[in-house]
């Protein structure tokens, strides 16, 4: 029963495919772009060697990777030259996520990611690339049993299809996926990706030559604008596509001890998050979302990030009306209360908020304005805009305490509100610079997870101290 097992052989194919994906660009450069001045043999030899090497590597990695499930722990041995053994006790596993990618679907298997609590975040403790569904279920059962044996009543049920269809707390409508990609700043993300890709090509394509050619092509600014629009549309399409793949069929199921999140169009993913491990909730709203009255809700999870996003933060609702978000949170986490008045910052903080962006921009903008006199002087208007934004973020910032719960809110373009409970806070700090002290202001900051700090600047001295004593 406890025999050492290997992953499904589809792992070889998927790892080769993955390596090829990474190799594609360099290979493309080595072969196609150098084709003019290197012989034919080069063109065949390079990909052949690469193929041979990746196949070999994929095969041996698979051959040397074994896992073993016994009553208490999961044991993994891997490494082609350097053997590594790792044993993970089931009772220490904090979260488990299943996903079915393209290759997994071909072979009818699933991928299992396992997270344990620990200081090192962001890295899955173990990934079993291809195991049968029965085995995944078996691992989940072991975890559940181990948890029950310990006195913590933390169960970790795993379900492909929930038996009760009425436990769905949230599901993303199809049209929301489009709205989501339109509003989440993903467009700019895609633009950034494209420009990063172009800068990667720097060595290969000589931009000087290209520029000279381009001057012929883009003869007037109209063509330039058109090119920009096309680039923007491509980026937008990419972003919509990515969000579609990632968030299609996004469903949150609310069970007694756990939250189960499933999503994905081609690559199905199933996350099981223990409610006990939720350190807090974050609501994010960017400018456009705020206009539409929508937010995205994330949960801070003390078991690393199972969905491959930011450290320790898992998307609960990627795009939802604010009122709906409140009811979803109320259903899933009844101990949190969302609609509440925020304590605003004192009036004397306003000037500081309005001046802060100006300090940062004044010198660079001033320099540019000076060099491009007289028209550059117009740039100084940006300082007014910056100070208005600072005023806006002053209005948005605030904090609130209700019972055991602390909420902090700040942000300029993107407002972030973090809700956490007293016994989830790892440390709380009050700080004051000399200027702040003079105005009787404090900066209140709270740590709930490694690299997850939330702070509100310029809270009234007495109020900040009240929060501090609330914590004691």
């Amino acid at each position: 029963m406890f025999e050492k097992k290997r992953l499904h052989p589809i792992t070889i194919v998927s790892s080769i495919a993955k390596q090829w994906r990474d190799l594609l660009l360099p290979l493309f450069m080595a072969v196609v772009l150098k084709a003019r001045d290197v012989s034919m043999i080069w063109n065949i030899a390079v990909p052949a060697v690469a193929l041979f090497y990746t196949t070999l590597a994929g095969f041996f990695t698979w051959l040397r990777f074994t896992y073993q499930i016994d009553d208490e722990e999961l044991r993994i041995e891997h490494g082609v030259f350097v053997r590594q053994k790792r044993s993970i006790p089931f009772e220490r596993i904090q979260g488990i996520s299943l996903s079915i990618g393209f290759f997994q679907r071909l072979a009818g298997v699933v991928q299992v990611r396992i997270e344990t609590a620990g200081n090192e975040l962001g890295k899955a403790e173990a990934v079993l690339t291809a195991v049968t569904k029965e085995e995944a279920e078996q691992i989940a059962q072991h975890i559940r049993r181990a948890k029950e044996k310990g006195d913590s009543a933390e169960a970790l049920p795993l379900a492909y299809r929930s038996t009760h269809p009425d436990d769905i707390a949230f599901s993303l409508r199809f049209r929301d996926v489009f709205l989501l990609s339109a509003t989440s700043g993903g467009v700019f993300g895609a633009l950034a990706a494209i420009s990063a890709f172009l800068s990667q090509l720097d060595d290969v394509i000589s931009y000087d030559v290209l520029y000279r050619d381009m001057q012929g092509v883009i003869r007037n600014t109209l063509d330039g604008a058109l090119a920009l629009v096309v680039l923007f549309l491509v980026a937008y399409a990419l972003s919509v596509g990515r969000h579609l793949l990632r968030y299609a069929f996004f469903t949150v199921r609310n069970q007694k001890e756990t939250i189960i999140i499933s999503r994905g169009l081609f690559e199905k993913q199933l996350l099981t998050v223990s409610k006990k491990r939720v350190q807090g909730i974050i609501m994010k709203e960017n400018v456009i979302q705020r206009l539409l009255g929508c937010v995205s809700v994330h949960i801070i999870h003390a078991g690393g990030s199972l969905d491959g996003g930011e450290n320790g933060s898992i998307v609960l609702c990627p795009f939802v009306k604010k009122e709906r978000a409140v009811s979803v949170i109320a259903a899933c986490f009844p101990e949190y209360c969302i609609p509440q008045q925020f304590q605003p910052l004192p009036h004397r903080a306003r000037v500081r908020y309005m001046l802060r962006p100006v300090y940062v921009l004044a010198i660079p903008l001033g320099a540019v304005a000076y060099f491009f006199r007289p028209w550059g002087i117009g740039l100084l208007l940006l300082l007014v805009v910056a100070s208005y934004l600072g005023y806006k973020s002053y209005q948005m910032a605030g904090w609130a305490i209700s019972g055991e719960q602390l909420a902090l809110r700040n942000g300029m373009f993107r407002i972030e509100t973090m809700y956490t409970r007293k016994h989830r806070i790892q440390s709380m700090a009050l700080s004051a610079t000399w200027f702040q002290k003079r105005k009787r202001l404090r900066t209140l900051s709270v740590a709930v997870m490694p690299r997850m700090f939330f702070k509100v600047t310029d809270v009234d001295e007495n109020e900040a101290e009240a929060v501090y004593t609330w914590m004691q």
Partner: protein
Amino acid sequence: MVQLSKRISERAVSVWRIHAFIRLAIFFLGYSLISFFLWRFGDLKWLVLLLAVLYLIHFSLSVVFWPRWRWQRWRYDIREKEMEVECGVWTRRRTLIPMSRVQHVDFRQGPLLKKYQLASVVIFTAATVHEIPALDEQEAEQLCHIISTFAKVDDRDV
């Protein structure tokens, strides 16, 4: 809020001064290199003079004054349920760490600290790291012991 009661060892000032001196000695190389080039290749004698003045200010601040100010502002307190740390010259920062969040405590002693019979205590929570620098050796050891007995991590809440 009441001021915290405990302070770190006054010998910390000497240790920090030595550290700062070593750092400033390295800085001196940088300063003099730049000065040399300015003197040799550009007719920028006033700039060299300015650099020298800057260096002197930098030196006196970080070797003479800063360590003392830093020590004066360093305070901490350990209670059964929580610990507090307050420090910072320009930005004063007071941190509260509930004992139930403390995961483990480290005793650290570099060669310089050892020579002065000092040691640091480093406190780890699941999210943050806090250091109380330059305590008296015995006191540090005692502190480690006290914190680890007070700190019973409630595993339910991480």
